[in-house]
């Protein structure tokens, strides 16, 4: 037992988690076709089971890195192999490994051609994602960041639907554009570090120490922020997402929505904001980011409300949800950041489940048009029950997971930005406005299409896919404390440190609450 405990506090477990999927993916290429999916599932399940104990071995309340390692890799250029886990990345890692076997199962009967490459891509993608979450060296981070790009491109472009090429190219160009600018910014940081400390390094902690002079900070922040904003995606950069989702195969959509988008928020939390705190928290930048996030919440909710295509609707709701998370991220209070990280997980579960359910419908009728379905509750009640439950979780019904994250984000942000939070809160109204009509049109009403009369309810395989998600959705709504506990310490120290640094650098403009929200402010005892 103690050996196991030692293993789980060492970096080897993380190293294994990161690289095992890629190795398994490569093995896929050499197996007979009919055995690929079994192998992929075994590997995915192994990955998940190995990752699971991390949840308990993670030391709650401890600030700083766990399972940390840093070994020189290419010392001439200051590149090291540095990994570590903290409260912000832990749940995202577990979310990724949790969704991996589910994605494999989702693809089970859906992917019928080029299976070898498909499962290889899926697994390699997970390596990239996990790598981004744990990398603590900018070079390593950038490599993993780019690794996520290519498998996703192929997943959409090869196994997608009709307009897959358009969507894949759009996805690729958007994301590549952002990451190239980020590379430039990383290089600038690299040179600044050499100037200031005389040694080459790209390590995370070293980069934090770099003093970036005045206006350069804004430029570098902009470069990082663009890369992450596209990934999130924040308002004007969001148009690749609906296309990518609509065209991607179900598993692609699941991974894309549930985990890949989180890389953007994670990037903001881990890199963009801590590296350039005074730029990020300067009034102009902060207000711009908040305004864009609000646009994401409100405007995309409007757009989602009129979507005729189920997957597009879900995609737009993703943008809206991530708007909430961005508000929480930039409000930078311990509550809002904790809520933001928790909401990333919640959104991964609910939106992942929504995409899976949309995929189930697609497998039956080969269309995502909502108008093609009606009265589903009558033919496939179990499916409809799942869909309603997941939709409710997505619009933040208290008692289900979505509420907890949203609540923490908003209650945390209110103390610092009351008016912005109020505007963001209107999102809950619009959430009902886009989700319920979809439910009404698809699930309620009478059967209007004869094709739907013969629909089969969820099969055992499909139940096996969706039930774990539903359990998590309810569990995280009713008893989110264990999850919050793991996030809170890191989120708190992160937000406090950044606000402190930014406060030293600039005039403390955004610390005061009550002046904004007129009235007297009482002591809080």
């Amino acid at each position: 037992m103690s050996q196991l405990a030692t293993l789980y506090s060492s970096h080897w477990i993380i190293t294994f988690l990161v690289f095992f999927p890629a190795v398994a993916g490569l093995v896929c290429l050499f197996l007979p076709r009919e055995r690929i999916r079994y192998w992929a599932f075994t590997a995915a399940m192994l990955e998940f089971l190995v990752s699971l104990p991390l949840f308990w071995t993670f030391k709650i309340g401890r600030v700083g890195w766990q399972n940390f390692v840093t070994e020189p890799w290419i010392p001439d250029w200051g590149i090291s192999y540095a990994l570590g886990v903290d409260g912000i990345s832990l749940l995202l890692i577990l979310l990724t490994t949790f969704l991996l076997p589910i994605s494999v199962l989702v693809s089970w009967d859906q992917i019928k051609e080029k299976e070898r490459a498909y499962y290889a891509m899926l697994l390699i993608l997970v390596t990239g994602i996990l790598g981004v979450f744990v990398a603590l060296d900018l070079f390593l981070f950038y490599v993993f960041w780019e690794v996520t790009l290519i498998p996703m491109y192929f997943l959409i472009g090869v196994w997608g639907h009709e307009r897959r090429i358009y969507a894949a190219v759009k996805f690729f160009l958007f994301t590549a554009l952002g990451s190239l600018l980020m590379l430039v910014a990383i290089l600038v940081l690299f040179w600044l570090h050499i100037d200031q400390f005389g040694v080459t390094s790209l390590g995370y902690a070293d980069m934090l120490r770099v003093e970036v002079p005045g206006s350069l900070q804004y430029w570098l922040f902009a470069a990082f922020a663009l890369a992450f904003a596209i990934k999130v995606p924040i308002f004007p950069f969001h148009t690749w997402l609906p296309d990518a989702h609509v065209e991607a195969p179900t598993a692609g959509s699941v991974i894309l929505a549930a985990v890949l988008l989180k890389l953007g928020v994670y990037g903001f939390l881990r890199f963009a904001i801590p590296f350039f705190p005074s730029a990020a928290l300067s009034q102009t930048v902060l207000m711009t980011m908040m305004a864009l996030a609000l646009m994401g919440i409100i405007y995309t909710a409007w757009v989602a409300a009129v979507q005729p295509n189920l997957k597009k609707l879900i995609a737009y709701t993703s943008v809206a949800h991530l708007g909430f998370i961005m508000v929480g991220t930039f409000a930078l209070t311990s509550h809002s950041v904790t809520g933001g990280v928790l909401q990333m997980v919640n959104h991964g579960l609910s939106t992942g489940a929504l995409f899976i359910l949309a995929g189930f419908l697609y497998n039956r009728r080969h269309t995502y048009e909502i108008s093609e379905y009606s009265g589903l509750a009558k033919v496939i009640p179990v499916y409809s029950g799942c869909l309603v439950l997941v939709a409710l979780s997505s619009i933040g019904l208290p008692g289900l997971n979505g509420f907890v994250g949203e609540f923490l984000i908003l209650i945390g942000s209110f103390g610092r930005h009351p008016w912005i939070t109020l505007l963001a809160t209107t999102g809950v109204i619009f959430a009902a406005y886009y989700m319920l009509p979809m439910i009404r049109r698809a699930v309620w009403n009478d059967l209007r299409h004869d094709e739907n009369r013969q629909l089969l309810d969820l099969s055992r395989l499909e139940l096996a896919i969706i039930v774990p998600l539903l359990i998590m959705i309810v569990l995280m709504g009713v008893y989110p404390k264990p999850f919050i506990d793991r996030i809170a310490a890191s989120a708190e120290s992160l937000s406090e440190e950044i606000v402190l640094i930014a406060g030293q650098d600039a005039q403390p403009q955004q610390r005061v609450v009550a002046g904004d929200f007129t009235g007297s402010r009482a002591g809080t005892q």
Partner: protein
Amino acid sequence: MVGVPVLDSMLALVQEATTHERAYVPFLPSWMILLPFIGFVINGAVGYLAPDRRKLVSAVGPGVLGLSFLVAAVNLVLLIAAHDAEPVIRSYWTWMEVGQLRIEAALQLDQLSVMMALVVTCVSFIIHIYSIGYMGEDPGYARYFSFLNLFVFFMLVLVLAANFPLMFVGWEGVGLCSYLLIGFWFTEPAKADAGQKAFIVNRIGDFGFLAAMFALFAYLGTLDFQAVFAIAPRGFEYGGAAVTLITLFLFLGCTGKSAQIPLYVWLPDAMHGPTPVSALIHAATMVTAGVYLVARTGVLFALAPLSMTVVAVVGAVTALFAATIAVQQFDIKRVIAYSTISQLGYMFLAVGVGAYTAGIFHLATHAFFKALLFLASGAVIHAMHHALEHAGEEAGEDVTQDMRNMGGLKAYLPTSFRTAWIGALALAGVFPLAGFFSKDEIIWSAGARGQTLLWVLAVLTALLTAGYITRWLVMVFHGASRVGEGARRYLRAAPSVMLVALVLLAVGSVVSGWVNVPEALPLLPEFTWLHQFLHPSFEAAEHVLVEHMGEPAHVAPLGGGEGTWAVLSTTAAILVVIFTFMALRGKRYLSAREAAEPTGLWRLLYRKWYVDELYDLVIVKPFKALCMVSWRVIDQGLIDGALVDGVAYTTRFGGWVVSRFQTGYVGTYVLIIVIGILIILGAVAL
């Protein structure tokens, strides 16, 4: 599950409590909530796995509620025995905890919450019994009961929660059940639409609730009821902007849930649900949650006189407004629905002038007589539906529920007829029925707090109420029968389970008023009992009120004491009832198919002041257009078309231009190479 030994121990506890005075120790509080949830799980499972096991469902659905009611009753007795007990908080687990924020899954048991829990479980239990008969032949029987149980679960969470977020869980949860139950017969688009409307309109209110919570936390650093109410008088300046905004946000939540102006529009549509659902959710329990919330947070409202005024004014105006609409409705359920909105207005008027007990009192009595009225109309609809269906005529909702198609039903449905009269008179405020006591206290309180205008509105509403409910009785039960010859033969009284429920509620409608006999009418040895019982819950709020506004007066705006006005008002109500009855009894109504739309002012009322049309024109349509513009013009046109694809097309065009040089002829390439060399060399040479 609770078995017989538990019942024994329950009895022992009650016995002990009534004989000795002792500190309040809650009796199985979690089971009160858990029982309906267990019912939900069992019925839900049956609904999916074995929808035909109706017996099981009939036993479990009402059974869990009965047990839950017993638990609530025991708790009430225990509370009564322990005079002025402090609230007891039972915490089960920590829901969320980040830094300063700590939200427990905790129940608060005090006079107010246990009293509410008792009303909720009692009315729910009776309505569950009624549903056995009413929904007996529905294919979604198990699903219906599982939703209904789930509703009671959430309602109890709402009532018993010890902090705002947990209350919000119940708050949204009951909204969800309301959504599911309004749209219970989801295959009909109108019903699915109505459910959706209810949910979305309620969400607007929920926005207010959320915002209030955020602000409360920002100012006070806690969301537990006890802590908030303890800190608030010191933490907030009296009448300050902060507390005013917070309470206004809370009240926005209330207008949504309790169907007040401006968010009342969903409630009439909610009548599309099964009638027992209308009785339980949209009359007796859920819609009163707003009143409960204002009463619960009385301290905060007391600190914000402006919000108090807003609450009272909105309440009074809604009361009158809805009553006017009720006068010209022909749908049997819609009349009562508008009546509900109107009565809720009364309750808000009460809590808005600081008469919290009066508000809760009316809430309780209203729960009985309004549920009774709904269930009686349910019995009528059931009979009409049955008759028309057997006669082979069209039996849609618009036919079976239109009062112009009824009339003279007293001969066929005697029990419903008698109980409906009890309910109607109670609603009209006729002595000695429940409504008399509670409504009278509200009107009196409004006057006593010096709100003369609101007092006038309330009195007017009372007269209108007596009028429209008499009209309702006459149109349904009296006069000549307008039911077709063929169908009339099939009119049958409802199953006995339904009648039992009617009788039980009728008893409640008679008795429940006597728990709070006013001081001015010394009819019982112990007057204002409810007031005294609830005193601990409202003590703090009343203290603040008295401190800043002084004691309420003892004379009405036009002079005269409480007793005088009580006698006056019941006399007036009786007169209006008699007058209306006489005036309408002989009137001949055309059946719905032949009747023309009313004209003049009547049409304005018949069309509900055109509010739905106005909302549609001013809010819904522009908003839909806005959504469409956002998508088509901004998202697809501007961002995706002009910017994203624009860049792509520009690049592609550039590529096309350059590709024109790729002629494939060696000569062209040579030429281009040479020109290139010349240019480079030229640059070097110069």
